[in-house]
């Protein structure tokens, strides 16, 4: 065996070790969180609100609901705009300087540090517009998160549309369909899997975000309420719950175990983290299922 082969083998083993190290790190992290969090987990821990147990800490039901509300509402807000923008950029724009700048802007948005978006939401939505949003609230948090995930959905949609074979679109035009009919009946149905994948991924992205949520949604130890109640501070004199009300989120519960260690114990923090990871993983699993079903049928 000469020097060249020895060198090759050395780097081959370095590559193998790196791969093994990566897997070990992952198993180590997930294993530790599971071991530390599992003892605390119980049905009442997951499904009761903090106010029902001890006022602060002790349960995460309110945070689970809050995370679901925030991630769903923000996705509902962002999706139409994102898909519309993606269709415009791929099918209507001529690829001139303006659409290229828009594409650049979207890249900038998707790389924005979350703290920058967080303080933007805090100042604009929570302080300047508090008569509309009710200050720290579900709607403030959702709008800020929608800005965060808009580029994610937009990019996914754009890629999905670009993957549609040009042949079938040409066939549609050849049959006399207009551009809109082609988009509606050929392009979008074909790209649906990719678009759905992007939407589901962005729900997960919104669920795991913490810096934006802590600065815009606040926190609440109670389950969200529903209904309309009078309020002098808000525009129209009414407060529409849960939209203009404070809302909790799981990442913030996890953060509380760092911020208020005497109220929220470390094991509760890890249990909340465990539930959060399970939620995000379940969302990712749904994504895989969408892709997999498409491949079969």
């Amino acid at each position, binding site marked *: 065996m000469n020097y060249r082969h020895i060198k*090759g083998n050395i780097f*081959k083993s370095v*590559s193998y*070790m*790196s*791969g093994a*190290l*990566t*897997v070990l*790190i*992952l198993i180590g*992290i*997930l294993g530790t*969180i599971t071991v530390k969090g599992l003892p605390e987990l119980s049905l009442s821990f997951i499904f009761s609100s903090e106010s029902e147990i001890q006022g602060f800490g002790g349960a995460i039901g309110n945070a689970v609901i809050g995370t679901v509300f925030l991630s769903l509402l923000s996705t509902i807000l962002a999706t139409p705009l*994102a898909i*519309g*923008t993606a*269709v*415009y950029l791929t099918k*209507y724009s001529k690829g001139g300087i303006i*659409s290229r700048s*828009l594409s650049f*802007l*979207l*890249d*900038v*948005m998707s*790389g*924005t*540090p*979350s*703290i*920058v978006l*967080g*303080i933007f939401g*805090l*100042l604009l939505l929570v302080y300047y517009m508090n008569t509309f949003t009710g200050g720290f609230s579900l709607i403030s948090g959702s709008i800020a998160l929608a*800005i965060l995930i*808009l580029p994610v959905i*937009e990019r996914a949609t754009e890629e999905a549309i670009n993957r549609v074979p040009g042949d079938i679109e040409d066939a549609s035009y050849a049959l006399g369909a207009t*551009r*809109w009919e082609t988009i509606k009946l050929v392009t979008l149905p074909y790209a649906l899997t990719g678009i759905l994948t992007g939407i589901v991924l962005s729900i*997960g992205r919104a*669920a*795991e975000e*913490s*810096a934006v949520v802590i*600065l815009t949604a606040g926190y609440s130890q109670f389950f969200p309420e529903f209904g309309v109640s009078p309020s002098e501070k808000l525009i129209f004199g009414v407060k529409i719950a849960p939209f203009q009300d404070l809302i909790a989120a799981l*990442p913030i519960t*996890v*953060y509380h*175990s760092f911020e208020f260690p005497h109220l929220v114990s470390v094991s509760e*923090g*890890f249990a909340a*983290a465990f539930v*959060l*990871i399970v939620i*995000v*993983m379940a969302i*990712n699993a749904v994504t895989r299922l969408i892709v997999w079903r498409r491949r079969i049928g």
Partner: protein
Amino acid sequence: MFNKDSRLDIHTFYKNMINLLNKDLRLDIHHLLFLSCAILTAAIAIYFVGFIFSTAMPVFESQGIIGFLTGTEWNYGKNIYGIKIFIFGTMIMTLITLLLAVPISLFTAIFLAEYAPSRVVYTIRPLIELLVGIPSVVYGIFGLFVLEDIFNLHVEPFLVSTLGYIPLFSDNTPNSGQGLLLASSILGVMILPTITALSEDAIRSVKHEYKEASFSMGATHWETIRNVILPAASGGIISSIVLGMMRAMGETMAIVMLLGNMKTIPSSFLSYGYAMTSKILNDIGFYVNQAEPRSALFGIAAVLFLLEIIFVALSRKIGGKA
């Protein structure tokens, strides 16, 4: 009868209007719809960028841009704001993160793309994608409640006893595991999957002919990787590293827990520091109502944002998008 007619009328009216827009004014109502979506998105993005920079403007005017960037004092009472310490904190932390994460993720990517059998790839890749799905607060409490003890009791004493004669490895805070090394290790794990996955894609997309040509010249597998595949994939690899770097610089929640938040420029791998993002998060809640301090905190965000915009432009350039 009357009702039916009027409905018909509305229908023809709608049709006529569409025709008018379509043919006579050469406008397409759906085109208009998508155009307005794009305009609204652009307006939000531009407003967002403008809002950050215009809120930060007063502090740039009162301190001067150079003064703001190079000043070392941050004092709300005296209205003096300089962010040199935070810039250095973020920069040094990001640099160490890259030193730790890039070699491991690059070799993992090479392993996945070149050496591993496909069965192994199909098990490992979803696992690596799982790492992306772990929220950053979770990395934070993992670092603080699990790794901090290990660093304090084992890693730091070991480094000090073996390499302590080098000033870069002195431990100024012997009772705590927090600091640059802990923060960078956690950040390294956070950006590892990003760099690995994107680099793997880049390596896989290198044309097969290149590889075969190299083999036919008698090159070994490693020589082919080193001299043919990596150079051909370098664009994608570098932009994956830039992306990882952006994520490290912008990370907030984990860093606020792990870096120690001490207002000094870190002097060794084990000392405390203070990152730009941590400063914003720690102070914005108290000062959002006061114009001067708020502007100063937005100033940090503006600097961070500007760096990010530069890196985005850079990675688009490398990635081939104009």
